[in-house]
Structures are given as C-alpha cells and as structure tokens.
C-alpha cells in the first residue's frame, strides 16, 4: 500500500494533440549502456513483439471553438488487438472525429471505423478491414505489475511514429482527481517514467515479456517523465463491452464517495464515506444521507480507507445491473441500516455539440452533472459553448456559459428540441426569436433579430456588385 498523502495534485494534465516539434541536439557518448546483455535482449524482444501491431493514428477531429465547428488534423497512437483488425486507442484521440486514418507498421494506410468510445475510461475501439490477418498484441495482467518493474512506452510522440522509450513503473495505482475536465472515476493510473509526450496517447505500455499492461493516456505538462497509463485489466473489460454492444453501460446510485480518512484516523473503521447524495436520486428518496458510511453493497463488503481505493468502490456500483434493486448496508450513528435502492443508468460523460451557423454560435447538451452545477431544477436547457465574435448570437447578448431555457414560449428540454425549433425558425425565415436564458444566477430575455443579420447584408453586397 502506498503512503497516503494530503497534498493535492493541483497540476494540469494535458492530453496530447498538439505536436510542436522542438529538436535539440543530443550528443551521445558511446558505450554507456548499463543494461546487462540479458536485459538488453529482453527489451529488444519485447519491442519486436509489439512493433508490428503498433498503429500511427491520424484522426480528423471535429472541434467547436469560438462559436464555430471546425475540423483539425491530430496525431495519436494505438495498437491492433486481433487478427481481424480491432484497434485500441484513447477516446480523446478517436472520439468526435469525422474520419480516422491508421498507418500500420508496414506503412499501409487504412481508414478505420469507430466501433465505440468510452470517455469515462478514455478508451476507444476502431476497426480496419483487410483480406489478410493483422499482427496483434497480447494483453498482460495489470494487477500483476510492480513498482520498479521495467516497461516500454510505444507510439508516435509529437507525431514521430514507431518510437520506443524505456522506463520503470513509478507507482502502480496513482489516484488522479478530476483535472481540466478529464476525470477517471473508475480506475487508478499506472505512473511511469518512460518518456511520454503528446502523440503517445493511445499507445501501449509494454512489460518486458512484450505484453500490453496499459494504454498511455496522460502526462503532466511542465514536469519530466510523469506519464500515466490506463491499466490493461480495466481497458480490456471496456474494449470487450464496446465490441459486443458498441458502448459501455453503467449503473449509478447518485452517490459521491470519500475515503474514510476524511472522517476518521481509526484504521479499524470499515466502509466508505458517502459525501454527497444527488437530490431527486433514488438513493436520496430512499433516505440515504451524506455522512452515512456504506459498508456493504449487496453482499460485497465496501471499503476505502484511502482515496486510491475509491475507484474500485465506484466501479462496484457501476458494474451493478441497471434498473434493478440493490441493498445498501449503511452505518449511521453507530447503527447498521439497510436501504433498497433501484439503480439508474449512468448518464453520458459529455453532451453532443452542434453548430448554428446562421446565428453564429454553438451549443452543447447539458449533462445531469452540468445541470446540477448550474443548479437547474430538472435537466432542461442547452448550454451555449461558444459565440462567433460579430455573429448574430454574440451581438444579441448571448454569451458562452448561458443556458437556453426557452425559445419563444416553448421550453427547451434537450439539444434535439432546440435543433427542431431552430430549424423551423430558419425554414419560416422568422424575423424575431425570443430566447429565455439563464446567465449565472439570473435569467434574461435575449432577442435574436434576423432581419438585420450579417448574412443578408452580405447577400446585398454581393448583389450590388453583380452587374
């Protein structure tokens, strides 16, 4: 068990899209290899085992910036896991992409189909087709790894394909709290000092047997050799579900857990602290309250003394069948109590984006989490994610962060609601449209006046110059 620390990890985690290439001359003095012949052979063998299945991935990603939808070309890594061409990479590499190109070790290029993605674990599965079998990797057991053990990181750092770096496992179960909007509630991370750079995302972390023990996915910017990989055992389960069902389905109870040390130093105290209960959730309705200690979920004892034990508790909840009752055994004020709660389906990690070019703005679906943070009763409304400077939305007073609650007098419950209403506004060439929006704690009316929209001015200018 690693020592517990209270120092917050308030560092920024970045995923690796940008691939600025900074080359500096590194002079190699000869003959400093300290690896014994045996180890050198094992590194070579491990590298050679995985290299044929290594994939250089070039997705065209859809991004919504400043009220506009644009496409950007990015670079990531991946690896083939079956002879029929399933490829594993990160969700942040292949998600929200309009096309994904895979370049294999033999330099052949294939356009891949995205089979499915799971933002909660940052795992994506792709599929490529060919009339011959593909070389593929073997999964290793990530529960069997040890800190200090040698590993290789393979992939395309800064777009440099076929790169290998060597290091050791620094920590086998690093707990990372939500950072920069990226959370990983259901897993700890393998921390390694093998060099990981932007572009390594989705590449394999390989042990000296040549088995994949993790998927490289995070690095600490501004630090050196602090890279993080998703454990293979977590990834494999997700990959199987994506291949079988196209997505991962999880259960939720509306509970936020905290480690026992947040309440007590007593090492004999069993269970896990319930820090928060979502209002209107089944758990809340059943009477579960913050401060209760969860000691059993169904028949399984629950325990998390330190924060790195929390992902396992959350995963135990997520793995319950959706829509079925489960018995929570809680401790409250020294007494044991049982509650029967029906699980709900875990909501989407992030909402869909959409661009509305006539008004010059973009919207994102409001997830229950966002709705709760905005303190919206119920889950209605759509969130303004960007406004094009000089566009109609921006000049009418709409700003990013606003939540649209109504269009004219019709409540907007979802992004598709808004899309339909917007479509009819455009089809009928409606001059004035009233939006009722929430801005922070206040609500406000925003009137969109299409009669003077920029596009019609442009049209007129174009017409003026047609002689």
């Amino acid at each position, binding site marked *: 068990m690693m020592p517990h620390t*209270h120092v*917050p990890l308030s560092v920024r985690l970045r995923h690796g899209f940008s691939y600025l290439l900074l080359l500096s001359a590194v002079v190699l003095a000869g003959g400093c290899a300290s690896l014994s012949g045996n180890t050198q052979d094992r590194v070579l063998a491990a590298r050679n085992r995985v290299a044929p299945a290594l994939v250089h991935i070039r997705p065209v990603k859809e991004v919504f910036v400043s009220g506009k939808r644009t496409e950007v070309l990015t670079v990531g890594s991946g690896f083939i896991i079956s002879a029929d061409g399933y490829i594993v990479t990160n969700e942040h590499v292949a998600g929200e992409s309009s096309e994904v190109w895979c370049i294999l070790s033999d330099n052949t290029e294939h356009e891949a189909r995205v089979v499915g993605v799971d933002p909660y674990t940052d795992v994506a599965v792709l599929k490529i087709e060919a009339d011959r079998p593909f070389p593929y990797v073997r999964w290793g057991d990530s529960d069997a790894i040890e800190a200090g053990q040698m590993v290789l990181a393979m992939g395309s750092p800064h777009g440099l394909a076929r790169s290998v770096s060597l290091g050791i496992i620094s920590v086998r179960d690093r707990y990372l709290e939500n950072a920069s909007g990226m959370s990983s509630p259901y897993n700890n991370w393998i921390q390694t000092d093998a060099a990981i750079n932007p572009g390594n995302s989705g590449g394999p972390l390989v042990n000296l047997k040549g088995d994949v023990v993790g998927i490289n996915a995070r690095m600490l910017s501004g630090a050196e050799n602090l890279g993080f990989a998703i454990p293979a055992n977590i990834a494999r389960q997700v990959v199987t579900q994506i291949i079988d069902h196209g997505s991962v389905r999880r259960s939720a109870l509306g509970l*936020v857990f*905290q480690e026992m*040390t*947040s*309440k*007590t*130093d007593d090492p004999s105290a069993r269970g896990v*602290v319930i*820090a*928060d209960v979502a209002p209107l959730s089944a758990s809340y309705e059943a009477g579960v309250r*913050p*401060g209760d200690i969860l000691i059993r979920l169904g028949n399984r004892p629950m325990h998390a003394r330190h924060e790195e034990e929390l992902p396992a508790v959350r995963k135990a909840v997520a793995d319950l069948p959706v829509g079925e009752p489960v018995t929570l055994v809680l401790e409250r004020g020294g007494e044991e109590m049982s509650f029967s709660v029906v699980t709900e389906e875990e909501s989407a990690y992030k909402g869909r984006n959409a661009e509305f070019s006539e008004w010059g703005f973009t919207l994102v679906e409001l997830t229950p989490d966002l709705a*709760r*943070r*905005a*303190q919206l009763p119920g889950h209605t409304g759509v969130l303004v994610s960007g406004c094009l400077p000089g566009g109609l939305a921006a000049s009418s007073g709409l700003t990013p962060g606003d939540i649209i609650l109504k269009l004219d007098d019709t409540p907007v419950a979802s992004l598709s609601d808004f899309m339909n209403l917007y479509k009819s506004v455009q089809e009928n060439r409606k001059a*004035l449209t*009233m939006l*009722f929006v929430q801005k*922070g*704690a*206040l*609500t*406000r*009316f925003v*009137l969109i*006046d299409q009669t003077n929209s920029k596009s019609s001015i442009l049209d007129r200018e174009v017409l003026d110059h047609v002689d």
Partner: protein
Amino acid sequence: MSIKSFLPFALCLSVLLFSGSGFSFEQEMLQRAYDTISPALCVLTFTQETTDPRSGEQIRQNGFAVALNVSAEGLLLTNGHLQRDNVQSFNFRVTFRIDGKEQSYPAVLLKKPDDLNVSLLRLQSETPLTLPYVRFSTDAGLSLGEPVAILGIMGETLDFNRAIQEDRIISVLDAPRSTYCLGGQLKMGFVTGPVINRRGQVVGVTGFDLAVAEGGEFFSRSGVPLVYQASLFEKHIASPPDQTQESVEAEEAWLGVFTQPLKEEFARYWNIPEAGGLIVSTVIPDSPAAAVGIVPGDIIRAFDGHPIRAIHDRDVLAFTQMVKEKAPGSEVEITLLRNGEDLALTATLGHRPRAAQDADEYEDEHLGMVVREITRDLRILLNLGEEVQGVIVRRVVSGSAAQAARIQPGLIIMSMNSATIRDLDDYKEAAQFFKQDKPDEITLFVRAGAQTGFLRLRPRW
C-alpha cells in the same frame, strides 16, 4: 486675496473674480484658483489591506489619495475606491498645508454613500477646528465643450506639491444622474480633485464611476474620468452618514426583481405599440415581487404612479434608485403588462438585502480562517437555495490548519463535528466550545460549488 488672510478664521473658499469669457483659462485665473482652493486640498495617507478573493492572500501597502475638505470642522471627500469588497483601509491621516506649514489629523471613514463612488471622512480632534474648506455651487451645471480647471496633488517624490490642470467637458450624461465626462487623463493625485468653472465656481469633484444594480452590486468602470456635480453629494455633506464600523441594517426598500429595458425590437416582438418599460427577467424567490405574483416576462409600465418608459440599459439604474428611495414596508402600486393585458398589483416593499461587503465576519485564529455570514445577496449571486445553511469561508491564512485541510475561500461550512452550523452565531458558539474542549481534530461537512463532502482539520491550540 492671499492665503494668510483666511488663516485665523474659517473661510469658505471660492474664487468669484474670473472674467468669464473666452474658451480657456488665462494664466492669472488658474493662479487665483490655485491660491484660493488649494488650502482645502489635503493629502490623505492610509494603510490598505487587499485580499485576493481566490487565494485569500493578503497584501498590505501604504497609499495616498487626495481629500477635499468641505466643512470648517473637517469633513472630507475622497476616492470611493478606498471602500470596496476585499479591501480594508485604516490608519487614516489627513494633512493640510496652510501657509507652507503642515497640520496633520487622524480621521475616520464614514459609511459610503451607495449612489456615489466617493468616500467621506471625518477628522478627529479634541479641540474644535476651523479649517479652510470649499463650498460648492450646487446649482451650476457644465456645458459640452466647457473648459474646467482641476486641482490635484503631485506624488510624494514631488513633495505632495499642489497642482492645477485644465480639461474640457466632452460629454454630458443625464442618466442615471447628472455627470460629465472629461476629455483628458486624470493623474492619480487628481481623483476627487475640485472642478472649477470659468466663473470661479467649484462645481463638483472628479471620479470614476461605479454602477449598482438591483439586488446585488456590480461594478462597471468605463475608465473615463467623470465630474460628479456638487448637487449629487449636497445631502451627504448636509447630513453626513454614520461611521462605517457600525454596520447598520440597510434602510432601503427592495422589490426583488432584475429587469431589462423594453427596447424597440422587444416591443415589436410582443406587439406592444409603444417601446419603453421594464421587462422583469428574474424574480428572486421569497422576495416582495414573488409574494405578489410577479413573474419573468411581466413588463413594468408604472411604479407608484410614475410611468416607467425605460429604453436604455442605464434606465434600469434609475428604477433601482426609485425603488431604493421608498420606505421599506410601504405599499406601492405597480402597473404591469402581462400577455398583452394591463394588470395592477399592490406590492409591499421589503428591506434591501445587506450587501456581502457589510456582512459580519469572524476570524478563527486557531483554525486559521475568516468566515462570514451568507448574506441574501451572496445567496442570490451564488445561486444557493434556502436549504443551504452555513457560513462561507472568506480567507484562509497561509500555512494554517485550514489550509492544510485544503479549505479554500468560497467553501461553505455546514457542520463541525456534531454541531450544525446555520449561521455565524452557530460558528462562534462552536468555536468557543472547541477553544475550551481543544479536540485533536474537527470534521467539517462542507459544500464546494454544487457538491458536499467532509474535511478533517487538526487545529493548533
């Protein structure tokens, strides 16, 4: 007139001898204004403690500002920026320079008038004072393009020498009150400097604006130097406010709505023949407006018999002022337009919620943090429901037990061990108990944003 001549007795300073023609000041006029008015111009020195709202880090520095004496006994106008949220100013000292000799007095800050970005100070002296002061011409207005002279004080390196500069009125504002924009830049020592017209009348002081919106406080500084006309602070000079230390419950009225003006295109959208009015955009729960059934989308057309014809954003402030000036508890008739129909309601106005900056605080030296009451306006701004009760952390001392427990400003404390914390009194009571009991650790139930959780703290007794 020489400076010596008014020394033995209090003299109301005004110049009154200008020739009053032409497009700028003649050198002689500027000299005369300088000689006559500058004895009432003082150097105000003070210490200021600024708290970073995020980190809670405090920076202490000494500052100086110009203060203008407006009464023989020592009542001074100065820069309103001295009194804002997150800033504590103290150690006030006012120094007159009369006939080349300096006379220095301690002073206390008075409660800030909330319709003006000007602060007031009162001198403290055991013996009655007769000091040089300026008397304003409250009925003199300024016109577009009119030249004005402004007195100020140069910085410490220039020995706080008094100075005069010329400027011109580049814009005349009618709403929300009569104010004028200056064309030039205002050097630091010229803020709250007296503004003199060509007839030698002191017509106002310079300053930078601040806007107060209904229900909460919003600062919007345009960055343009302004002249506040003397009539705006006439009442504050005639009956100065109380000392700032005694936080008095606001005696202003409150309706509990946020509004936006009924502009032409909004009127067109709702098929209202005539633009002008206030669209209710937000109704604060449990406010007088909510009690009488006002809902978002209602359009206020008349308030207490006065027609409301708001077209511009700034007209909202005039309405805020109108509501404020009523007596809390009074009944007012409000005429609304709802779904095209006229509707008359009678609302009972409430007390305006106390601003967060006036909230009571408590410094917990053992835990190393300052907590404050959750005032009504904080509740509105942070969108906190009535079910959220507690105290809010305002500041965390660096290296303290609170910091070690990852407590940050903005966190809401809802319980400490078994004690429920509903307000500051509960906190004080719990703190008192812990002080005697000296527990090794205290478990807090807190709320950060929309989420709750537990924190364990090890106090240093």
